[in-house]
C-alpha cells in the first residue's frame, strides 16, 4: 500500500499493465517523453521504451481510428485524449466504429480499447477545458463509460477497463487529480495524502474494481443521492450542509449502470436527488430520473430532483455560478424533505 494522488494511481495502473501485458501500449498527444500534460504517463516511455508509450499527431480522430485498428489486430491500446473537450473530432470513430465493430462483424472483430481523458471543470479552463461529455457516450450502446472519484478506484477501474473486451471511455475528473475537492473553491484543498481519505491508500500491484458496481459511500435512510466523479465530494459537503441523513451512491460507471444498488437504496429512502456537473437537459440525470421513476415509483415520497450545470456553455468568469456546488445540493435536499 502507498498513499497516492489520482495521477499517481492512474500511472501505477498503466505501469502494472505495461509490465504484465506486452500487448498493452499507450499513445496520445504529449504522453511520451513528456508524460502527458497532467503527468499521468510520466516515466512510462523511459521505463518501457518508445514503442510502448509514444506521442501522436494532434488528431483525435486519428488516435481513435489507429487504436481501433490495433485493437482489431489483438493489441490493447490505452489512448489519451488530452482534454475530454477535444474528444469530439473522434466522435465518428467512437460512435460508428469502436462501439459497433463487434456487433456488425458478428464478433469477428472487436475494439478492446481504453480511451482515457481528463474531464470536468472547476479549474478556470473556460468553455473548452471544462466540459463533461459523459451523456454523449452513454447514449451510444456498445461503449462503456467509467468515471472514478478517488485514487483507489481510479487504479482498479482503469485496470478493469483495459482488461475489458469492449471499448471504454474512461473519464478522469481533473479537479480531483490532486485532492478531494468538495466544491468550496475558497477553502484550501487538502492533498489526497493529507486528506485522511482511506481511498488514497492504493495497493502497488494488480487489482481491479469491477465495472458496473456502484459504491455506497455514505449509508443513510432519508434520501438517496446519486453522483459520480468530482460530484461525489461535492455531495458529501452538500449533505453535511443540509444536515439530512442521505445515502450517497458513487455510480463509478454510467455504462454499465448498477441499477440494483440504486433501486435498493431508493426503495429504502423513498427520495432521490441526482447531482452532475454536466449541463441539465438530456443529461445523465434525465436517464437516472426516468429509471428511478419506472422502478421505484411506489416507494417515492417526493419528486426526484436534479442538481446540474446550467444549459449554457461552461463560462469562464462564472465558473462558480455554473458549477453545481454544495449549496445548491443542500437546497435540493431540503426541498426534497419538505415536499414529502
Amino acid at each position, binding site marked *: 500500500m502507498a498513499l497516492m494522488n489520482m495521477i499517481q494511481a492512474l500511472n501505477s495502473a498503466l505501469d502494472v499493465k505495461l509490465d504484465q501485458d506486452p500487448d498493452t501500449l499507450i499513445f496520445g498527444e504529449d504522453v511520451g517523453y513528456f508524460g502527458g500534460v497532467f503527468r499521468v504517463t510520466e516515466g512510462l516511455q523511459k521505463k518501457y521504451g518508445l514503442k510502448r508509450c509514444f506521442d501522436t499527431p494532434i488528431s483525435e480522430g*486519428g488516435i481513435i481510428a489507429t487504436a481501433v485498428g490495433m485493437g482489431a489486430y489483438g493489441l490493447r491500446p490505452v489512448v489519451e485524449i488530452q482534454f475530454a473537450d*477535444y474528444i469530439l473530432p473522434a466522435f465518428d470513430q467512437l460512435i460508428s466504429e469502436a462501439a459497433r465493430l463487434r456487433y456488425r462483424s458478428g464478433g469477428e472483430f472487436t475494439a478492446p480499447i481504453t480511451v482515457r481523458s481528463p474531464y470536468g471543470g472547476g479549474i478556470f479552463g473556460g468553455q473548452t477545458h471544462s466540459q463533461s461529455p459523459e451523456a454523449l457516450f452513454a447514449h451510444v450502446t456498445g461503449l462503456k463509460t467509467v468515471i472514478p472519484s478517488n485514487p483507489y478506484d481510479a487504479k482498479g477501474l482503469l485496470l478493469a477497463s483495459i482488461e475489458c473486451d469492449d471499448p471504454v471511455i474512461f473519464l478522469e475528473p481533473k479537479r480531483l487529480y490532486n485532492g478531494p475537492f468538495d466544491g468550496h473553491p475558497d477553502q484550501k484543498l487538502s492533498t489526497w495524502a493529507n486528506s485522511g481519505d482511506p481511498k488514497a491508500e492504493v495497493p502497488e500491484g494488480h487489482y481491479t474494481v469491477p465495472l458496473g458496481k456502484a459504491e455506497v459511500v455514505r449509508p443513510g435512510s432519508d434520501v438517496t443521492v446519486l453522483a459520480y466523479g468530482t460530484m461525489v465530494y461535492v455531495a458529501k459537503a452538500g449533505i453535511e450542509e443540509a444536515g439530512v441523513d442521505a445515502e450517497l451512491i458513487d455510480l463509478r460507471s454510467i455504462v454499465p449502470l448498477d441499477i440494483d444498488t440504486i433501486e435498493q437504496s431508493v426503495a429504502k429512502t423513498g427520495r432521490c436527488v441526482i447531482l452532475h456537473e454536466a449541463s441539465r437537459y438530456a443529461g445523465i440525470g434525465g436517464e437516472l430520473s426516468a429509471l428511478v421513476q419506472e422502478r421505484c415509483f411506489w416507494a417515492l415520497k417526493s419528486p426526484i430532483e436534479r442538481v446540474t450545470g446550467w444549459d449554457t456553455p461552461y463560462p469562464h468568469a462564472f465558473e462558480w455560478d455554473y458549477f453545481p456546488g454544495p449549496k445548491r445540493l443542500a437546497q435540493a435536499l431540503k426541498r426534497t424533505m419538505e415536499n414529502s
Partner: protein
Amino acid sequence: MAANRLDLYVPEPLGRPGDTPSFGDLHLSAPGEIRRPDTREKEANMRDLPYGLIRVLDDEGHAVGPWAPHIPIEVLHKGLRAMLLSRAVDERFFRAHRQGKTSFYMKSTGEEAIGVAQSLMLGKGDMCFPTYRMLAWLMARDYPLAAYANHIFSNEKDPLQGRQLPILFSAKDYGFYSLSGNLGSRYGHAVGWAMASAYKNDDKIAIAYVGDGTTAEGNFHEALTFASVYHAPCILCVTNNQWAISSFSGIAGANETTFAAKGIAYGLPSLRVDGNDFLAVWAATEWAAQRARANMGATLIELFTYRVEGHSTSDDPTKYRPADEASAWPLGDPVERLKQHLIALGEWDEGRHTALIESLAEEVKAAIKQGEAIGTLGKSKPPVSEMFEDVFAEPDWRIIEQRKQVMEG
C-alpha cells in the same frame, strides 16, 4: 527470416534537455535565392516552391532578390512598433498570470512578424481566422490595450462578457474571427467565408492559421480540399514553430516532407517562407492576396519560425527540449531583423529603438492599470445574467428559468 520482421517506427527529436541544440539538415535557402513566379502562374509549374524557403533579408539586413517587397517606410516603422508592442503585452500579461490576476496566458514570442506583416498587408474588410498566437494582428491594427486587459482579466468590462478563456478572443471590427480552444476548427470557416465573398461578388479575402501540430487534424485537410475545389479566395497559413506543446514537428510529419508541400496534393500553390523575416512574410502574403483577389483561388503558406517560449502559462519547455534551443535557431529574431533592416536603410537607430521599447512598456503598464482598476479575475466580473445571454438568439424556457434561479440565489 529475422531480417524481414517488421518493427514499429516512432520518430524522435534530435535533442532533449541536456543535449546540444541541433536543427539537423535544415536546407535553408539563401536570401533572395528562391524565384518569384508571376502571380498568374499555374500551380503545376511551381511545385519547387514548397521545398525552398523564401527569404528577403540577408545577414546585413538588406532586402535582396525577387521577393523584396516595396513597403513604405512608415509602414515598416509601424510594423516594428506593433511587433515590440505585442512582445511588451505578452511580457506584462504573462507576469499578471504569475501574480494570480488571470487564469491563463499564451505568448507568441518570436512569431510577431507573421501577425503584424499580414495584418498590415491585408485590407480592413479581409478576415483573419487566427490561432491563439496572433496577438500581433490586433496590435498592428491598434486594438485598444485597456479593452484587451479587461478580456484577459475576465472582468466586468470584458468585451466577451467573461464567457471565454483569456486569449481565445474575438474582435470582428479588427478582422479577427472568434477563437476557440479546439485546434483547427476554424480553418474551414475561412474557406467558407472566402467562398461567401466570391458568391456575393465582393472583393474580400480570408486568411487562416493553424500550427504545425494542428496540420494533423482532419479540419486542415478538409479545408484544403474545399479551398482547392471551389478556388476559394483565401490564404491558408501553417505557422510552423516546430513545437506542439512537448511534441516536436516530426510528430506532425515534418521529418518526411515540408508543411508547404502538403498543398501539392490538393493542387494548391504553396509557398514556404521564413516567418521571422518581416519582408518575406509581407511579400508572400501580397503574392497570395493578389492571386486570391484575381479569382485564382487559395494559396497555402508555411511560415517557418520557432516557438521561443513555453507553450502557455501551464508549460515548462525545459522538461522536453534543450534549454538554449531558441538562441540556436539560425533564422534569428523577427524584431531584431526588422530593426537591423531599418538601421541599414538609415531609418532607425539604437537610441530610438530603446526609447520606443520604454514608451511601449509604459503604454502597456498604463493599460493594465486601467484593467486592474476595474478588477482582475475573480475581483470583478460581468453581471451573472450574462452567463445566459447569447446561448440562443432568443432564450427558451430553460434558460429563462435557470437565469431566474441563479439571480435569486
